[in-house]
């Protein structure tokens, strides 16, 4: 065997493994999912078929559209809340905080919860928001309320709080990275040209950090859109999300074809959002 042939085998192995991985663990499962979505439910299980009945069910039965609508609503609220909290925080870290050590500590303070199990963190919110939880005891201790409030837990508000807390690192990281890349002399140039720091912020900093904002928003939104743990742990009677319905179709209803159709719809929504955000990012990109 020549050295070149060996080289080629090595290269093939190097490139082949990831391709095999993608085909085996991404493309094939997606294909299976798509195939199932055309099958038909038939007692006791389901049968192969090619028909659009499952998709028609999703359109015709109001429960599916209303659940998709609710999921979109919660994902938007969480993403906006996370943005409003994350942007000033990242801005403060990058532009206002002079001490590098404190900056690092604060940044890792936001990222660190990612190392703790998602389930555990969601579960913790139950103990905070409950009727006899930390929040109610504190408010009562301060004399702000006299009776414990039950609005905090088992409500859509509880889901928004939990999801915002869990996904905010995905908002902070890209915004922080985008802000850090902005050359400081642009600030000085703007000031030299007589612009107030407020104008500089809106006309220089914000436009240049937009790619980070879009990336953060997309990540947070898509993660929220597919979440089912928050509804399961802290959601109320009105907390059902799309992912919970999919779970139920694969479990309780034993209707994998319908569950697959719903999963395909979800995938399409997420892909549409990602490609939109990609296009937006391309347009707002600035070369230094």
């Amino acid at each position: 065997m020549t050295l070149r042939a060996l080289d080629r085998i090595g290269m093939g192995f190097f490139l082949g493994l990831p391709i095999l991985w993608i085909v085996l663990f991404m493309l094939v499962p997606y294909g299976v999912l798509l195939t199932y979505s055309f099958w038909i439910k038939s007692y006791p299980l389901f049968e192969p078929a090619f028909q659009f009945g499952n998709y028609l069910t999703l359109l015709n039965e109001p429960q599916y559209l209303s659940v998709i609508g609710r999921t979109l609503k919660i994902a938007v609220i969480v993403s906006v809340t996370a943005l409003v909290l994350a942007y000033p925080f990242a801005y403060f870290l990058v532009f206002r905080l002079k001490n590098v050590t404190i900056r690092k500590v604060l940044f890792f303070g936001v990222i660190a919860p990612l190392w703790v199990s998602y389930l555990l963190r969601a579960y913790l919110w139950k103990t905070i928001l409950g009727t006899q939880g930390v929040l109610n005891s504190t408010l009562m201790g301060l004399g702000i309320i006299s009776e414990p409030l039950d609005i905090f837990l088992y409500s859509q508000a509880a889901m928004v709080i939990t999801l915002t807390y869990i996904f905010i690192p995905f908002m902070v990281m890209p915004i922080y990275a985008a802000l850090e890349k902005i050359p400081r002399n642009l600030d000085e140039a703007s000031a030299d040209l007589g612009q107030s720091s407020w104008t500089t912020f809106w006309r220089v900093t914000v436009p240049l950090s937009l790619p980070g904002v879009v990336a953060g928003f997309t990540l947070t939104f898509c993660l929220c859109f597919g979440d089912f743990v928050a509804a399961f742990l802290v959601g109320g009677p009105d907390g059902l999300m799309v992912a919970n319905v999919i779970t139920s179709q694969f479990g309780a209803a034993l209707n994998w074809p319908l569950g697959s159709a719903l999963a395909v719809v979800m995938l399409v929504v997420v892909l549409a959002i990602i490609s939109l955000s990609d296009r937006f990012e391309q347009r707002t990109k600035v070369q230094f």
Partner: protein
Amino acid sequence: MAKTTPLKTILTTIFVAAFGMPASAEGELSLLTWEGYADDSFIAAFEAETGCRVSATYVGSGEEIIAKMAAGGGVYDLITPASDITRLIIEAGFVEPVDISRIEQWENIYPQFRELDNIQMDGEYYAMPYTWGAIAFMYRNDAFETPPTSLAALFDPRNEGRIALWDDKSAIYVAARYNGDTNIYTLSDEQIAAAVETLIEQRPLVRRYWSTAGELVDLYVGGEVDISNTWAGYQSALIAAEGIEVTEFIPEENAEGWMDSWMIVDGSADNACTYPFLNMQLSEQGQCGVANVNGYSVANPVAARNCMTEEQFVALHQDDPAYLDALLMWQPLGDRMGAYVNAWNSVKSQ
């Protein structure tokens, strides 16, 4: 024996990690069951006696058993579905017949269970009855001056925000009974629609649709709810252990009943540990074992008589066949199951 190359080892490791272990090796018994049904308190002795090693995977709902079987459940030897899905599991071909001549105490099982149509097909048995109970209702003693006796308490605005209901198609059964439809397992589309209406009206009163045993316990212990349905005997004991007094009751509108049985996954009858395990579970060791852990009634009253105290025997209604006969035992819903589940989903998606 084939030579083991490093590549083969790596591939095997990857595939085992990705797809799970192959079917049980000799002397091993793999269960897909409910928590408590393979509790160490009585399984350890069985393992020591027989040399069979028992490993259990726990499920949270009967449908999870079906889903796992449908996805290729050959890794399990025994499963314990409830009586509403045994028929589906038989017809789907997931299990093989139980040879009742090899079950020593078969004749001691309640005749009501042995005669059940749901566990037989073509003259053969496919399940060994094990435990049973009611989907009873439960309230917190200090929350009610007059103890509730009817389902009406779960639909009463005065209990707003203090009600929990099981997140299951069972909610449809509850609402149908409240509406006066007692044929809960053969509801027409109109009756299901009426149940959905009732549940939608009730929803603002509900604090939480609970899904796991532990969750319902937390709801009571955390002071979130005062009244709910419950798996009779199980959660009330856990709540009492936390120092909160609750009372179980069967409402005027009656309650559902369930029966769990052991089924042999297709291909596992040959496992030498299968029948010794089934016989142990139906004997005093298994029957009192599970009754002590989960607080459920058991299928073999003769064994129960031998190993239970008089109080436990009475508390679990083992002395009173009329109690069992009065319950609305879960029936297979057949191709109507989707209608029930989707109706329940539509309540939650409003």
